[in-house]
């Protein structure tokens, strides 16, 4: 540890790698699944935080990637949801290979900014693309679990109806959550909106207006987040209230 770190380190430390054991997995989409882990010593996380996941090969080679946490609250259970990036190093392993009983390492929770706390009372607009739903799902769950009455809205953009993570949970009626589905490649039969990428008009039609000063959380692939965030600012949202999490990629 450097002198600087010792002298100025803020009070909380991320600390060591924890060993997590896979409790269950659930196929969510043709390319993605959720993974529930038991991580002794984890101690809970805020909605919206992420973890670093570390894999170690038998020869000692290691790879680490960040994954948002779909669960929130106290305890040692952690749920992740991962979309397979076909030529990727880590995500195909997590989606196709990992089984209940397997171990992997996690560090965190990380990030104290892209988070929603149950003490927040303002309206919340969530906008997610693909696996970008993951930290937003944690916020929705935290909202429900805490009995918060803050109005929540979600705009969720997926390729086709099959590509939605957490579909049944999101389809469960929730008086404090309003969900708008957007499809970019194929819609359900009889769906009024043709398949296309999210546009300013979608946000204008379905999201809380800027005049309500909602807290806004946008998460997904870089291009998605970039487009949505620019549209939100064009619609008058205060950039300070628009929080983004970019998952990388196109």
């Amino acid at each position: 540890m450097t002198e600087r770190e010792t002298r100025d380190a803020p009070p909380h430390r991320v600390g060591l790698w924890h060993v997590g054991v896979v409790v269950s997995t659930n196929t969510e989409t043709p390319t993605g699944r959720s993974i529930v882990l038991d991580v002794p010593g984890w101690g809970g996380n805020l909605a919206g935080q992420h973890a670093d996941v570390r894999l170690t090969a038998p020869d000692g080679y290691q790879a680490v990637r960040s994954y948002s946490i779909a669960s929130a609250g106290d305890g040692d259970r952690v749920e992740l949801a991962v979309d397979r990036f076909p030529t990727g190093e880590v995500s195909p392993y997590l989606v196709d290979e990992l089984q209940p009983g397997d171990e992997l390492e996690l560090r965190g929770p990380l990030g104290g900014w892209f988070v929603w706390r149950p003490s927040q009372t303002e309206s919340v607009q969530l906008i997610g693309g693909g696996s970008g739903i993951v930290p937003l799902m944690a916020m929705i769950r935290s909202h429900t679990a805490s009995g918060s009455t803050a109005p929540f809205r979600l705009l969720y953009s997926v390729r086709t109806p099959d590509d939605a993570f957490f579909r049944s949970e999101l389809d469960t009626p929730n008086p404090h959550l309003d969900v708008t589905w957007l499809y970019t490649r194929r819609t359900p039969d009889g769906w009024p909106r043709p398949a296309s990428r999210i546009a300013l008009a979608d946000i204008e039609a379905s999201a809380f207006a800027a005049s309500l000063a909602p807290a806004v959380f946008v998460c997904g692939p870089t291009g998605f987040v970039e487009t949505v965030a620019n549209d939100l600012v064009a619609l008058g949202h205060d950039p300070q209230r628009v929080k983004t999490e970019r998952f990388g990629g196109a």
Partner: protein
Amino acid sequence: MAVISRGFTGRSREHNPELPPGQYLTADFPVLSAGPTPDIDTADWQFGIRKDDATLHTWTWDELHALPIEDIDTDIHCVTRWSKFGTSWRGVSLDTLFAGVEPSDEYVMAHSYGGYTTNVPLEDLLGGKAWIAFEFDGEPLDPEHGGPARLLIPHLYFWKSAKWIRSLEMMPSDEPGFWEQNGYNMYGDPWLEQRYW
């Protein structure tokens, strides 16, 4: 005490001595920022260095471009674990900008358009180690990568290379900036993996 992940073999097996520990190479240029990308007209752009005694030195876009411009070829390392080799930039060295500014303090807070902040020791900005960069790969810097101008401090994790740079403020002691208040290391040396608190 790492646990072995059953069935994981990994992909990039070669050790590259130029790659800091825990990093992997990418050919893309990923974008990571905390909020929307600000839209800044170079006609309104201004860069300033503020001293502890409130003296402010400022440069307009044209004034910055009238200074000696350097080509910078360097590797960059993001705390989210991607590294990119041989990136090429053009910009003005902080040595040039500090030439007429007698430093008042050892620490600096970088402030960006849009409100982002990050802290850096002054010595990490001087001695040919940092620039105000406005070109990437022969083109004006894209807004999503920090255009019109960003700080470039290649020897630290890239969150220190504040996008949309607006000013540097000298401080008598080290104070955490935006990500530093949100869990990131105060210094950020990629070779020491100074990622988090």
